[in-house]
């Protein structure tokens, strides 16, 4: 059976993480920002699975299941908040809803 070396998997996961981070910094729409965060969390999950196989332990996959569950909770709360934001402001642009700042 063909196995992918750990190094390649780490590089791939690192790229995904950086893509997510870049998306978070570039995008101004809250839903896209939430998606970028999901990509970052999943890239961490990928590293856990790769490391779990590398060490021959189930721990990595167990951790991934926890990550999946927690990410689902986070997204559901996030989407609930985003709905409220849309009701309130009629926009999902983060710059438009940013009012908290110094000296006001």
């Amino acid at each position, binding site marked *: 059976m063909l196995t992918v070396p*750990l190094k390649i998997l*780490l590089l791939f*996961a690192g790229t995904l*993480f950086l893509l*997510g*981070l870049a998306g*978070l910094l570039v995008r101004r729409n*809250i839903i896209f*920002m*939430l998606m970028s*965060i999901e990509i*970052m*969390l999943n*890239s*961490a*999950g990928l*590293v*856990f699975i*790769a*490391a*779990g196989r*590398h*060490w021959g*332990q189930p*721990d*990595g996959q*167990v*951790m991934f299941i*926890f*990550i999946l569950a*927690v990410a689902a*909770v*986070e997204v559901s*709360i*996030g989407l609930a*908040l*985003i709905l*409220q*934001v849309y009701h*309130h402001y009629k926009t999902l642009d*983060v710059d438009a*809803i*940013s*009012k*908290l*700042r*110094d*000296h006001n």
Partner: protein
Amino acid sequence: MTETDFLSLTPLLIITIAPVVIMLIISIYRKYEIIFGFSLVSLLTAFVSLFIVQPLLPHRIDHLMVFDLYSLFFLGIIFFSAFLIMLLSHDYFKHLEGFREEYFIILFTATLGASLLAVANHFIIFFLGFELLSISLYILIAFQKKKDYPLEAGIKYLILASVSSAFLLFGMALIYTALGTMGFQGIADAISKMGVASPILVIGFGMMMVGIGFKLALAPFHMWTSDVYQGAPAPVSGYIATVSKGGVMAVFIRFFFDIKGFSNQDFFIVISAIAIFSMFVGNLLAIRQQNLKRLLGYSSIANMGYLIIILLIGNNDGARAAIFYMLSYFVTVIGAFGVISLLSTKNREAEKIEDFKGLFWKRPWIAIVLTLSLLSLAGIPLTAGFIAKFYVIFEGVKSGLMLLVFSMIINSVIGLYYYIRVIAVMFSTGEETTKLPSLSIIGNVALTMISISILILGVYPGWLIDMIMKLVAL
């Protein structure tokens, strides 16, 4: 699981069961006072149960959790702070429209998250506690969902806290890749056997530090602090400043003491830089603030800087000084946020410094509590803050951390300026402006408890220092 496992888990189980019972009570009969009373009793029971489980210690549950005197002490701090916040929330949330009882459910889940961090001995529990705390805080911050500021603060915290947990998680994953173990002891053993740290390991620790730095609001990861403190309801801001940071601090100290991180030269430099940067950023940004909640947010950045600096001593003395500092800071900052929440009305928060103009002549008792809190934050003798700063500087000088102690002293002087400014506003005579809400018995009890704690820690701290000496041995 054995019987001892269950017995030592009692405090956490009480905190877990309480929100479920509250949900049931709400579905049968929704009444604010009943829910509030039940929540208080549950937290008190959890606090008392700490003394009951104490003879079982130290006890480990697999590799996941560890119950020793250190974690028990942190659980005590967390429950005590949550109890005070709950007392102060009563008046604040009572006047709100819509459903308010759910606030207490979320408060319990957040407290559970912080408690998990205090007992964590494995990455899985660390991550679960961290996330449980963050996710509950999103809801708490945006609890008044019809208002602008809480909603915006909730979104900001959602984005930034998720990024911080992504960093933490990726760091954990890299450490697991490098070492093949996720328990704190296993990691410590693997590191001590290893000669040179691999790049993967170093990046992993760096990314974990970013995640923890976000949660503790250390510069340069502090950007969210003042916005969230301003936007969140005042009791929740107090909660973020105390319980949330207490939990993260517990796991931070335990993890880096286990792996002997503080004796690592590179880590020492990184933490010193973060600490000094946090102090200056926090204090300099606070100077010109006109908003008390933002001011307390910036001052919390500086205070976390003072706090982690002393950990660099890298032995038990440092950890003890840090924990004493943390406890006195918690009591003090709960006092300040408590005054804000008790003076807030349904439609507006008492957060502008000019709102406090002439407060002493209108509400002398509240003004005295706020004065006491601010004096304690500034580190004036006879208050908790003075003893805490003295203790930290004493340990710092003893271990020869001169640069760090020196920057801490400079920053304390800067801090003095903006705390005293608020006190001066309170004692100035001014025209009648806004009508102040009346103070309930529960609010009075909370304020009395806080001022007594500040004074006791300031005048007679010996017993607590002795207790910390006995309990904290890492």
